[in-house]
């Protein structure tokens, strides 16, 4: 994997997908993947293969819903959109994540603390 791109970890991928759907509205799988890469400033490489099991899991958990639609280029594609439970989950997860990063930040730069 050249270009200094990092792989996305499984746990965070779900949150990124949810957040993307919240920001952009209903999207198809390919679009979500591209959007995540763009948002990361091309610093992340989404292995598209891992995206579909993750989407399936979110759908089983009831955070997203899918239906067939037509893409911008007139191609048939499956569109995912956030459910109400999904919106709540984004808020919850985001808060958790902020907490975690804040704590980690204290460890990584302790001199700022005092």
């Amino acid at each position, binding site marked *: 994997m050249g270009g200094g791109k990092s792989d996305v970890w499984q746990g965070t991928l779900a949150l990124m997908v949810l957040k993307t759907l919240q920001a952009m509205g209903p999207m198809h799988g390919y679009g979500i993947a591209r959007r995540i890469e763009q948002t990361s400033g091309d610093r992340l490489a989404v292995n598209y*293969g891992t995206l*579909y099991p993750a989407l399936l899991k979110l759908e*089983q958990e009831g955070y997203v819903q899918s239906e067939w639609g037509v893409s911008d280029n007139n*191609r048939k*594609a499956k569109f995912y959109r956030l459910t109400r439970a999904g919106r709540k989950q984004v808020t919850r997860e985001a808060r958790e994540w902020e907490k975690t990063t804040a704590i980690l930040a204290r460890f990584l730069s302790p001199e700022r603390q005092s």
Partner: protein
Amino acid sequence: MRSLRVWIMRIAGLFAKRRHDDELAAELESHLQMHIEDNLRAGMPPEEARRQALIDLGGMEQTKEACRDRRGLPWLESLAQDVRFGLRMLRKNPGFTAVAVLTLAIGIGANTAIFSVVSKVLIDPMPYPHADRIVMLRRTFTGGIGLYPTTSIPKFMVWRQQTKVFKSVALYDWGAAGMNLTGGSRPEQVPGIRASAGYFQVFAVPMTLGRAYTREEDKPGGPHVAVISYRLWQGRFGGDPQIIGRTIEVAGNADEVIGVTGRNFSTQVPTDIWVTLQASPNSRDQAHDYVAVARLRPGVTLAQARIAMKLAAEQFRRKYPGPVMSPGESATAQLFRDSMVGSVRPALLILLGAVGFVLLLACANVANLLLARATVRKREIAIRSALGAGRKRVIRQLLTESLMLSFAGGILGLALGFTGIRLLLARYPNNSVGGGFDLPLIGSRGSAVTLDWRILLFTLGVCLFTAILFGLLPAIQASHAPLSQSLNEGGSRGGTHRSTSRSALVVGEVAIAVILLAGAALLIRTLSTLRALRPGFDPHNVLVMQMTFSGPQYDKAAGLAAAIQEAERRVGTLPGVQSVALGCCVPLQGGSDLPFNIEGRTPTMGSWSGDEQWRFISPEFFKVMRVPLLSGRVFNDRDVLGSEPVVIINQVMAKLYWPKGDVIGQRMLIGHGLGPEFEEAPRTVVGIVGNIRERLVGMTAGEIEPVMYVPAEQLGDPFMAWVRGTLSATWFVRTKTAPFSFSTPIQNALRTATGGLPVADIRSMDQVVRGTTAWSGFIGMLLSTFAAIAICLAAIGIYGLMAYSVEQRKQEIGIRMALGAQPKDVRGMILKEGGALTLVGILVGVTAALALTRFMVTLLYGVKPWDPAAFGCVVILLGAIAVVAAYVPARRAMRVDPMTALRHE
């Protein structure tokens, strides 16, 4: 909540697989196309655009697979796969499958059979509401005599004052002798008891009609009222809706029916009529003829009840100082169930242990089969591993097959075991009066033993346990095999390391067979000891029938005397009848004992000289039973009330109390101090008769109890008035040929002779004798069956191992023979191998059996648990069978042709 939703979605995902797959394919395809278009737009050549898109997707098929796993339940799908494959494997080897399933069916079936009885007798709650709160109140004695179930009215009157622990208490007749229902065209004897009013509260008796009698009605001088059973109401009274208030003639009294019990109410001793006991609080009747039960107050523990009973016993001692309570006597409370099943529990647990061993044996045998088959399947498993099956996956596959085998065995075993035990119980009439076979709580002929969830659950558990037991070791071993080696070997030769575990299995099998055989052998010895016991009388061609003397004429001694003489005249002259007699009790089945004083001696036991068995008989009794007169004379028609009171004793009693021999003419005072009904003048000993075994239960082998016989015609009027209407006795009729053919004329003659009294419980004395061994016979038969199964399984195990070993060592044997070994050397080698394993097995088994058989001690009679003869037979029998089992393969080894064997190399 979320995870439940995920589960539901995933289970739903198991279905409509094709549609989901198509949809996913379409989705990925559109993803790919969009990516390619993007790449083209970025200026890539078409080939490169497609290649790059595929790389980024990370492989179409892997993505599909990952989604598929996510969508359904992969383990369930692979289980289905395993089951399908397992079925195919089992069908391909019908011989192996049949043997394994049958072996397991026997093992599991035996467990189901015994457990279904254990479940009913030891686990199921008794059929009363909150049955675990019902206790039996009983006497205890220090010095190991154990618990005595019966008590007396005065003791009960003291005990029942422990109201802090007992919510309700009741006293009732022990044994339900039978009550005469007279009046109407068909006199009949039905089982009935006299019970205090508390009975209906203690057992929480439901009522179909009417009510139970009250404490007021149960007071002395209260009205004559009766409660009848649903069965009697439906039967004798045809379900008469007007039954309440009707008067029926019970035991010579006109009783008013006031209630009919609920349809499902059942008693442990069948009972159809309950009448008031009307016991007086001031009673001085010291006879221990009653059972006391109580229901504990909520929150009261059994331990508290025991303490209360101990206190009550001491209160009684203070209230009645003197001989009515022996020095070592106290009282206790025992769970009602324990008092019912206490005596059969050890036997049932032993049987449960025995079937456990049978199951272990079955498992060992199937494990052995699987190990042998694993060698054959080595290649198959190697190929599976080569194709990417992990070790866990292989073990899972093999365990699935084991589970299928054990479930097939389980289903067959459930059917076999359950029907088997029901058929068996039906062959052993339960609750037959004094039949010696009395397994409580299983209903008449085992009808209460039903297939319930507990038995199903137990069988399921046994199946799972069994599958793991016999399947895990072979599965682990099979999955171990190094790939390249097994592929190269070509599957014809197995490793030697495997036979170690197989040898261990065979040793274990032999050991278990020894244990089971030892148990069976000890019981067979017990049975033969019991059957060899000489009862002291001639049981052939003697008919016995029970009668309860009720009616005003039997309130006085003269009535009974007249009935006896009339019966002698009417029955004694019937064609085919030799003699007839009345006796209180049937030999071998026990009876009551009374204390006595020997005139001119100082009491050695409290205020008495001794306490021995007491029987009343009519003059012809010893003639009917063919008991020899050893000294003096037997009773005759002149020994009636008013003439000199006489007594005859048996030889044991004569030797015990008059060791010097000067017995005849001595006088003894029987029952003095027990209460007014037992008071009588001293009796003169007029004869000594041969010993009759009066009972076997509780006796050590060979022990015969001292007995005193008094003439039935000399029972005092106070005694007759006391037993009023409930005097139960037995007619003994000696016939010239098979006794049952004379049953009807004898019954008719007896009815006429006694003024219309019915008889019940008609048996031959031969049946009575057989009945004494019924319980031992039942247990012995079951254990012998299990032991026989064990021998077969062990023999198959030895044979299988030796045959396998010969097969494996064909080349070696061929080389040996080519180098000059004689066929008999080869045979000896194989026999030695089998013999060594058997010997180790026998040693282990004998050691274990010696440790285990002491738990059987309550089942044994006249045999020590370490009986050398029994153990010797077991060792010889098993040794012989092992030699035979090893001999067949050994002979095959002898015939190995060196050339063929060597050419195999």
